[in-house]
């Protein structure tokens, strides 16, 4: 009888403790879902100067008609300048990033990496990883 009770208690405890577990791809999957199959229009770019104690902020209104980019569900990306390629959303040392392998309209390959500052259903902020002042790009969907 004791054995039966023990098994019962163990089964109940296991059921209580077993949860849907977060996997290594949960965060990137969620971000991918928010990112894909939309046209992201660049509204603003902000360049922050890093060589001063009080950073100089240069805000420039780009306007939605100037530039947009699309991330497709199949891992491809294309933008309004005719640049195409592939992309992956990655989580590296806790930092969410978009890695793009692109080709110019002339066929020259190049890689760009963006840090994801924030991504949502209708707005996104990316930071371009380049040497010098960081450039933040503010996108919205229409």
């Amino acid at each position, binding site marked *: 009888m004791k054995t039966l009770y023990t098994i019962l208690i163990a089964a109940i405890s296991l059921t209580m403790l077993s949860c*849907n577990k977060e996997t290594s791809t949960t965060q990137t999957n969620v971000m991918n879902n928010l990112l894909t199959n939309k046209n992201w229009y660049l509204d603003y770019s902000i360049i922050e100067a890093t060589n001063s104690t009080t950073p100089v902020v240069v805000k420039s209104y780009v306007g939605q008609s100037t530039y947009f980019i699309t991330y497709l569900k199949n891992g491809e990306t294309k933008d309004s300048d005719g640049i195409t390629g592939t992309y992956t959303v990655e989580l590296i040392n806790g930092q969410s990033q978009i890695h793009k392998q692109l080709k110019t309209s002339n066929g020259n390959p190049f890689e760009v990496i963006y840090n994801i500052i924030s991504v949502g259903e209708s707005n996104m902020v990316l930071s371009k990883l380049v040497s010098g002042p960081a450039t933040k790009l503010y996108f919205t969907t229409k």
Partner: protein
Amino acid sequence: MGTTNTLSYKFLSILIFTIFVSSSMNAQTLTKKQQDSAFLLHPGQERMRKIKKSLAKTFVNFTGNEVSLYGALALSKQNIDDNGITAPINYLYNNLNSNSFNTGFNGGFRIDGIYKEKHRYALSLAVNRISAGTYYKNIHNLPPFIDDFTHFKADNVFTTLSIAAHYKKLLPVNDMNKYKFYAVIGPSFDYKISSISEENLINGAGNRAFINLDLGTEFDNKGYYILFAHYKLGNYISSSTVPVQLNRFEIGMSIKTKDLF
């Protein structure tokens, strides 16, 4: 035509009678296998008999048990604290935050009885379809362009399996021989059996088990049915990066199974 019908009825009656007689004869005479089986030990049956005996011994003080079926409407709201989320995700606050109670339902069965002929109790098992309004405690923004968002999107429709153990205190209201009013208190436990979305799992936020404190009143109409109103205040049973407080009001009715079937 009439003669044919009469003949067929007669034939049918004889056939049914023959089947009945043969089956009753079969019931009286055991087959060789059944006769052998009667002398054999049945470990399964023996174990069941022991369990029943043991349960009867253990629960000797739990008397007057009545099984009832019940159903209820449930108004639910969850309060969400998303400060533990580090993923750079935003959901527009006004799109998600309803700050209201939404309607769900539940159904199950309960056992009402008396412990040591003094303390009334109710044990219940139910399936709950919860549709919860959501209140997000924190509002984030990302100046200069993104205002009022939350980092987390909670599942607001889900199904749980719940068990509850309630202590019932008879209240000295009205004619207690006819109508009984009870104050009810006790714990309950909910376990999510529906799938959890990926949004809900992010940064270790996902959790399936709730522990609740239940408070309420019940009205017993001469033993025909019980009307009840319960308030449940629930929290995740284990730690989560996004603590959720689940508030529920349940209004329902239970009827004894022996009156139903």
